[in-house]
């Protein structure tokens, strides 16, 4: 028998209050303290997620809300170079969630202003105050994201990036870890001024349990390109939120590679608020064994003539679980919207699972929205065709998997970056052939 809602609510409230009690907000100046205080109240009002919540029905958040982060053994990568190492970029390194200036490059970059959150928060005023916690708060409706509010309240490090022109090279955020246990919590704010352009790269496991919020505001005519490769540590857990507001004629392209990880929940909340904006959110997940990769994407079209794409591909084996919850919400003024959403998975064995909820919510009549979702194994006919042409079984399988993922990789604009990601995927498959 179902537990009455009032009782559930009361027990959630109690657990949340207990969780918040005894947690100290990081010290900071007036703007940061005000934003964090509000965020604590949001967490209290929203309460922590449980598996009974609609948007957590496929991913159990228990290990994300446990008082202590479950231990995750360290994983040393010896079989390939670091992600993006061929790219000329400004490297900003965080070790166990703390900025490491010595390991990082000089953050001065023409057309880009970079400040460490821990420093900026100490000031009484900063440009980031118009965004920090503001976009996250806006993203709490219609779907609640209490873990993002929690991050706003308690994260004490991260970067505040303001692009005022066309950045010469990408800003690369690298998350290393040295501790087996423990949390890392980072909160970034990115503001792309009108007409400016920026590429942000992210990679690394960060911590046994990593919480990250990235608030992005792309002004009219601005462009942000975001490519991320989360760490290959098998036991790590991560919950990330991308909140992005797009102005007129602006573009956001965000791609995420998830290879391994016990639990990865990547949420993206995107608002297309000016005409002719474009948002592409994509990802490829590779899971083997104890793996759960969850992409939860919510794109809202508020202005006409915008385009959005959600492209997610998952390769699952050995009992791995892939989750996709995507939504295109087209508000009434957003006529001539072009919305596309595809989520597909390849399952390698009877134990792997793909759980999908691809939603459309449409209030405008002159739109073109489509979504597709498929799940299945490698087509035996395709395999046979390749075998008949002398390609060995394992190689044929890899080729077909790469072809399956290709659509997601194609969302990456920069060919060098795309090639880097593609190479990592083939090596991931190769390792499983040996």
């Amino acid at each position: 028998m179902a537990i009455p809602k009032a009782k559930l609510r009361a027990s959630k409230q109690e657990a949340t209050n207990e969780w918040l009690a005894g947690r100290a907000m990081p010290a900071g100046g007036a703007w940061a303290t005000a934003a964090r205080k509000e965020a604590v109240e949001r967490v209290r009002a929203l309460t922590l997620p449980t598996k009974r919540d609609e948007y957590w029905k496929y991913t159990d958040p228990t290990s994300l809300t446990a008082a202590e982060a479950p231990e995750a053994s360290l994983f040393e990568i010896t079989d390939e170079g670091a992600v993006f190492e061929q790219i000329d970029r400004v490297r900003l390194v965080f070790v166990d969630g703390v900025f490491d200036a010595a390991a990082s490059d000089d953050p001065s970059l023409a057309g880009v202003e970079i400040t460490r959150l821990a420093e900026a928060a100490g000031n009484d005023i900063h440009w980031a105050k118009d965004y920090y916690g503001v976009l996250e708060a806006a993203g709490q409706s219609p779907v609640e994201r209490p873990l993002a509010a929690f991050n706003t309240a308690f994260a004490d490090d991260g970067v505040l990036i303001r692009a005022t022109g066309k950045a010469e090279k990408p800003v690369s955020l690298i998350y290393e870890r040295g501790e087996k246990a423990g949390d890392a919590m980072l909160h970034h704010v990115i503001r792309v001024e009108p007409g400016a352009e920026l590429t942000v790269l992210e990679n690394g496991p960060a911590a046994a349990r990593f919480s990250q919020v990235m608030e992005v505001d792309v002004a009219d005519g601005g462009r942000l390109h975001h490519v991320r490769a989360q760490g290959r540590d098998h036991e790590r857990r991560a919950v990330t939120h991308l909140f992005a507001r797009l102005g007129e004629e602006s573009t956001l392209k965000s791609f995420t590679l998830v290879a391994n990880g016990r639990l990865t929940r990547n949420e993206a909340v995107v608002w297309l608020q000016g005409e002719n904006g474009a948002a592409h959110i994509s990802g490829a997940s590779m899971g083997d064994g104890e793996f759960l990769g969850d992409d939860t994407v919510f794109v809202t079209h508020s202005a006409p003539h915008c385009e959005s794409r959600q492209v997610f591909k998952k390769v699952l084996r050995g009992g791995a679980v892939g989750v996709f919850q995507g939504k295109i919400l087209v508000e009434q003024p957003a006529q001539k919207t072009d919305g596309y959403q595809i989520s597909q998975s390849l399952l390698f064995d009877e134990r792997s699972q793909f759980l999908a909820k691809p939603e459309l919510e449409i209030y405008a009549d002159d739109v073109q929205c489509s979504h597709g979702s498929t799940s299945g194994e490698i087509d035996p006919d395709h395999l046979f065709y390749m075998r008949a042409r002398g390609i060995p079984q394992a190689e044929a399988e890899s080729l077909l998997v790469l072809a399956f993922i290709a659509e997601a990789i194609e969302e990456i604009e920069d060919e060098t970056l795309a090639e880097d990601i593609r190479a990592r995927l083939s090596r991931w498959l190769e390792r499983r052939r040996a």
Partner: protein
Amino acid sequence: MAALDTTPQAREGVDQETVDTVQSMAGKYKHGWETDIEMDFAPKGLDEDIVRLISEKNGEPEWLLEWRLQAYRRWQQMEEPDWAMLDIPPVDYQEQYYYAKPRSMAGEKPKSLDDVDPKLLETYEKLGIPLKEQMVLAGVEGAEDAPAEGRKVAVDAVFDSVSVGTTFQEELSRAGVIFCSISEAVRNHPELVKKYLGSVVPQGDNFFAGLNSAVFTDGSFVYVPPGVRCPMELSTYFRINAENTGQFERTLIIADKGSYVSYLEGCTAPKRDTHQLHAAVVEIVALEDAEVKYSTVQNWYPGDEDGKGGIYNFVTKRADCREDRAKVMWTQVETGSAITWKYPSCILRGNDTQGEFYSIAITNNWQQADTGTKMVHLGRNTKSRIVSKGISAGHAQNTYRGLVSMHPKSSNSRNFTQCDSLLIGDKCGAHTVPYIEVKNASSRAEHEATTSKVDDDQLFYCRSRGIGEEEAVALVVNGFCKEVLQALPMEFAMEAQQLVAISLEGSVG
């Protein structure tokens, strides 16, 4: 743009005919009249005494009363579901009558249709549902001239809380088919009812099913014995007439091994300013090699242009393909009701079982529909197919909500889902909320929701024969739409025909 409120303009890609058809279908409600007849009501409200009263009025055995009371006690612990994309004003369950019976039906049930109150017969005649056996169902072209042996449909007519009469019972019984009201079945075939009632939709399944289990008054019962192909189509016509009266019918269909039955359901209600409650349960059990087709044209009063009045339609329909190779097909045309909450589902338990769901849902003015299906694949080599077309106009909200679940043991199973929505006017909404849960690799699930994503092979076939791309898409999409309509038995052809005119050009997913 204000003009859209009353006369929606066709925008590019949607022809005026489509707009007009949708307007005419949902704009005028033909069955909004009322039969002036003396009724006996149970006291207003709901408590254990009302449940006992309903049971007593139906002359039920003790076990069924206990079953009802158990359901009632469970229901009291339950909360109304709020997950649907429906804005439902609070329903006061104590402001309803749970039992209403035409006075003329008091005492002994009429032995034959000749004894039935002519006013009741007139009601059904006016609705185009003849209860005289020499007549066939109206709406089939040339029906008047057809010989009686031609196309026959047996009808169980339910008026508010009671079954008025069931036609062709004798002829059906010669074939071994039992078709009667569920209250008769409880009296005459208690072993069957006891065995199957609640076996597909248990008492505590959901809030509305719980309520229905406690207070269901009448409905139809069908049993088709092994190896029998039911000699005619069976149908139930539900009519709500009395004011402030809820209708809570319960239908139970059992198709024994190797049997076949096609079942039709129609429903209407008078125009009223107040909302009326309808919470039905339909259970279908399909045993080995059995096949059941269940078709509905739901045309309850949808409320007026300002959203006043209309039926709240909360229905739980579920089929259990309990044994191997059983097949169940749901087809629904949903045009009525102020609120529709309905998910005809299939539990594909046996190996090689099949479930199909074809749906056209039209909402206009202030109607809200949240409808779809659940296909639960448990057995091996099971197949399901979902084709849903939603059309939304005025201020209406139309949601497709569906679940496709492939369990770890349902290897080699297949699902194909196609959902299309069409919006007419810019004040309405169309939504798609599919849940797809695949838990084994050898099964394949496909979900599509766009005209441009129609099967590439079919498109390629058309293109290679010189048909332009747009035309090719239209051809394939038209094929899909026809599939839903063709899934309907002939008897519903007339009502469905109006829908054929609706083109799906400019549809969104």
